[in-house]
Every structure is written in C-alpha cells, then in structure tokens.
C-alpha cells in the first residue's frame, strides 16, 4: 500500500497538535497513518489516544446523566474502560485478519490503525453527543436509552469500518473487516455487561455487579426494568 507523504508543518489556519491529528483522521486517514509511522509517531498516537479517552469520558458522563448524581461519574469512568478493553481483546484478531487479507501491518502500522480506530470512534460519539444528551435527560425509559446508545455505537462502528478499510488498503479485505467489526460490537456488549451497571444503579448497589452473565440476559434485564417484558 502506498502511503501519502505526511505534511511536515501545519500551514496557517490549519489546526496544530492533537487537533491537526484528529483533522487528518477525518480528512486524510492515510496521512495520519503515515504520521504514526514517522519518528514522532508514538507522540502523535499518544495524543490521539489521550483525546479519545477524554472523548469517551465525556460521552460516559453524559450517558450517566440518565440517572444523574454519582452515576454520572461512574459512567464517565466505565465508558473508556469498555472501549479500551474491547480494543485490547480484539486487537490480536485484527492483526491476523489484516495480515491474511494481505495488509502490510508492521508494529507501528498496527499501532497507528488501532489509535486511528479509537479516534474515529471517539469523534463520532462526540459528534452525536448533543443528540445523546437531549434524549438522555428527557427520557425516563432505560430501555429507550439503551437503544439510543446502541444506535450511536452502531453509527460510530460503521464509520470506523470505513476507516479500517482505508487503513488496510484492500477492498478484498472488506468482508473480513465487516465480520471483525461485528465481533468487535458483540465483544463490546459483553464487556459492558461485565462492567455493569453503567447507566443506572439501585441505591446502595455496588459499583460493579459480581454475578456473571451473557450480554443477551443483560439486555433482557433492561427490558424488564421498564416492565415491558410483562406486556
């Protein structure tokens, strides 16, 4: 795959530092990937990852406003943990999927792709943050809010898939990437279940529930909390 030449200096009017990296991620993903492979690539990657974590913290805090109070803080901590743990679990399979599809994934390249993925997910979630906030603070149904966040997550994943297709540089790999992204989504549901409760917690309940369960059962609980399962 041919990489575009990285822009050495920010031109007048062009954002600098972290904003420039995020700008590249949106407009010229291949430029960003090339930058992460350059000598200061680790610093660029670190800035994007830091900004992504901050983005997820903000998104989590807004999601926690559904119940408000201490749960805002709890959700702000758990949201980045959910995405980071999911990425950690899924990264090895991404490397093998990509390599088998013919992508030239060096260690730095892999790091750049993962950091780019995190940035893309965070940007999309922040882009939809006002919408999520509006529905979160105006809704009293847990079931509705769960679906709202699932929708936001699905939109973020679709655009992240587009980024990954560009990053891998092979249309041949698109089918494998779609499969991987579905797997990524399912793993994120299970991680969320493991770290539950995120959106709402009974008074006096622990910050993390100890019982083990599958994410389908967790979804079913949200359904029952609203009493819709009895209809």
């Amino acid at each position: 795959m041919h990489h575009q030449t990285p822009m050495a200096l920010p031109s007048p009017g062009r954002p600098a530092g972290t904003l420039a990296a995020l700008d590249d991620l949106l407009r010229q993903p291949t430029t960003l990937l090339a930058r992460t492979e350059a000598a200061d690539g680790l610093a660029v990657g670190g800035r994007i990852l830091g900004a992504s974590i901050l983005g997820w913290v903000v998104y989590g805090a807004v999601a926690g406003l559904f119940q408000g109070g201490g749960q805002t803080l709890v959700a702000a901590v758990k949201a980045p943990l959910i995405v980071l743990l999911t990425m950690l679990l899924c990264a090895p399979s991404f490397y093998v999927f990509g390599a088998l599809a013919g992508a030239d994934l060096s260690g730095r390249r892999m790091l750049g792709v993962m950091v780019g993925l995190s940035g893309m997910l965070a940007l999309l979630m922040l882009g939809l943050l006002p919408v999520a906030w509006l529905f979160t603070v105006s809704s009293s149904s847990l079931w509705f809010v769960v679906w709202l966040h699932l929708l936001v997550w699905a939109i973020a994943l679709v655009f992240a898939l587009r980024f990954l297709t560009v990053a891998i540089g092979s249309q041949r790999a698109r089918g494998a990437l779609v499969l991987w992204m579905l797997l990524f989504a399912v793993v994120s549901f299970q991680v969320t279940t493991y770290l539950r409760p995120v959106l709402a917690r009974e008074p006096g309940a622990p910050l993390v529930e100890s019982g083990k369960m599958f994410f389908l059962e967790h979804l079913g609980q949200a359904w029952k909390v609203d009493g819709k399962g009895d209809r």
Partner: protein
Amino acid sequence: VGSALLALPLGLVLHRRGDLLAEVAQGEHLRRHWATLTLLMTVAAALYGAVLGSWHGGLLTLYVALKMPLVLILTSALTLVFNWLVAVLLGFPLRFGQVAVLTFMALSVGSVLLASLAPIAWFFTFTSPEPTAAARTTHNLLYLMHTGFVAACGLAGNVSLWSALRRVAPSPATARRVYFLWVVTYALVGGEVAWALRPFVGSVYYPVVFLRDDALDGNVYEFIVVGILPHLWSRLQ
C-alpha cells in the same frame, strides 16, 4: 527462544505464503515446511483449546489443549492418503509431501486465526456463569460461540487452500475438483473425529473426562440440530 521459534513459522503463514507456495510447487524443502507448519498449528490450536476447555477449570483446560491439535492431526492422518490419491487421479500429479504441506498450511492459517480469537473466547468464558446444572443455556451459547469461531477459522483456512491450489494446479477446473473433494472429506471426517474426542466445552451434567465412554456414538451435526437448537428455541418462546 520460544518466541523466536514461533515468529518464523508465523511470518511464513501470515506474510510469506507466496514464497512458501513457490517452494511447494517446486517440491523444495517439503519436510522442513511440513514440520514448521505442524509446530505452528499445534501451538496455536493448543492455545485456543486451553481457552475452550477453561469453562470447566484446570483439568479440562489441559485436556482440550491436548485434544484440539490432536483433532487436526488425526483428521489429516485419516484423509491425507485419500487426498493424495484423488489429486493424482484427477490429473494433478502432486507428491505426497506436497499434499501434506498444502493441508497443514490451511490448518495453520485456520489455527493462527483461531488463536487470535482466544482473548475474546477467554473473556466470554471468564464472564459466563459457572458450569452448574442450571447453566445449560450458558453451555449452549458457549458451544455455539466456539463452533462459530472454529467454523469461521476453518473457512479462512479453506480460502487459503483454494488460493494455493489455484496457484499450483494445472488448470482451474482441476483445482476446483480437488479442492471440493479435499474440503468435503476433511469436514466430514473432522466433524466425527471432534465428536469422538469430546468433551471440549464440557457438559453441565457429566464429569470432566479426557474421553467419554460413548465416544463413538452419534455425531456433532445431530447434536446441534436435535439437542442445542431446540433448547435455545424453547428459551426464546
């Protein structure tokens, strides 16, 4: 030393399959390639096997880490002669060593992909309810997850086999016929070998054993259709 020993075959399968196939087509270094691929496949399959068996604790973890590579090696041992004969009879004059390397290359690709899914499989296993008699739904979901992973990775291995055969076969039609017969034979035999070597996930009703007393009764397809799917369907009602 261990990681260096594995990095070489891993690079061969993930990044230099073209070089490998060129040498296979020339009939060069077949024994060395076969040994390298067998090592890689064994380690990767054992790694996933350890995760597969981990729901029931340490003993089944160990058993399945041994049994996963065993399934692949036994199935290959049972089908290699037939595969070689079929190739020769269909006008694809491969040497026995070439058939062995092509077969184990496909198995290695599938196993490496499977090993890369091990962290995900481990996480689902680790976060699942304990294996009690009341956890049949969990057992069935884990069973379906592992079956799905193994099937998908097997498919990826098959894709690499198909690419390899297309590259070295005398004609596309010959490659198609040989590929079809090899895959069907391997799937049928592999399904039964895996069934005979059960348990892998481990039953919620029976104790952990290396092999069951009724090892040669029934087959895996029958179990999914008659046992698992009706139970999950009834849970959805």
